[in-house]
């Protein structure tokens, strides 16, 4: 199995009404549930460009925190999905599902090293059922 990152930058996302955002959220949630059922889901999350960001640099030997991004860049990570799949074809299939659900572009990266993950065995609401 190989981990793939399916990610988008905030700048690739058009403006949406609250209703459209709600619809997209539902569609993405359905894909996430499908990923869980297929046993390939690792993580999915979207970032808020308005949310406070901070950075930490310990190259001096002690961690030094600063508010804001570490460097100003033109594009900013907007959200990401991580899947652990058998091959690239499978990664492409899931990336396509996310792209259709979101309706904005996604970029796919193959992690060159195996990572670590702790996908919870059961969600609290599922366990309660």
């Amino acid at each position, binding site marked *: 199995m190989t981990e793939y990152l399916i990610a988008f*930058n905030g700048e690739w996302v058009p403006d949406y009404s609250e209703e459209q955002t709600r619809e997209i*959220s539902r569609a993405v949630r359905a894909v996430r549930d499908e990923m869980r059922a297929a046993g390939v889901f690792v993580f999915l*999350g979207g970032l808020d460009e308005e949310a406070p*960001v901070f950075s930490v*640099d310990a190259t001096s030997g002690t*961690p030094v925190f600063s508010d804001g991004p*570490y460097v100003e860049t033109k594009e900013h990570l907007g959200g990401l999905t991580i899947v652990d799949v058998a091959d690239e074809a499978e990664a492409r299939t899931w990336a*396509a599902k996310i792209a259709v659900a979101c309706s904005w572009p*996604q970029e796919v990266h193959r992690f060159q090293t195996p990572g670590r993950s702790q996908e919870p065995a059961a969600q609290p609401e599922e366990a309660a059922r």
Partner: protein
Amino acid sequence: MTEYLIAFNDEWVPEHTLDQLREKSDRARVVIEEMLAAGVFVFSNGGIDASTAVCSVEAVDGEPVFTDGPYAETKEHLGGLCVVDVPDEAAARYWAGRLAVALDWPQEVHPFPGRFEIPERFLEAEDEEAAR
């Protein structure tokens, strides 16, 4: 609990020998073991850079259209990331600081969830209402 992304761009990582990289990797692994023991660890992988973009995919009229390589040419590229699920920002700062010390290159910290996610409880309340 709130999920936080602790990430770095590949451009922030100085040149390393293979031995130095192995040492950093071992040090990061110790921090991750501690995150696991503390019950805050979700995911980590540092194995991406500008060269790892396989393809991009965009929905055109509802159908996925693939292109090779990155979607946009950018100056900086995500190099690796770690996701933790912690009670507050202070805890996120603590773990980001630990990773920054272990790896010795800067880390940027972002809270999840974002504007594209409607909290589950709202969606579930809506579903229940629709079912009535």
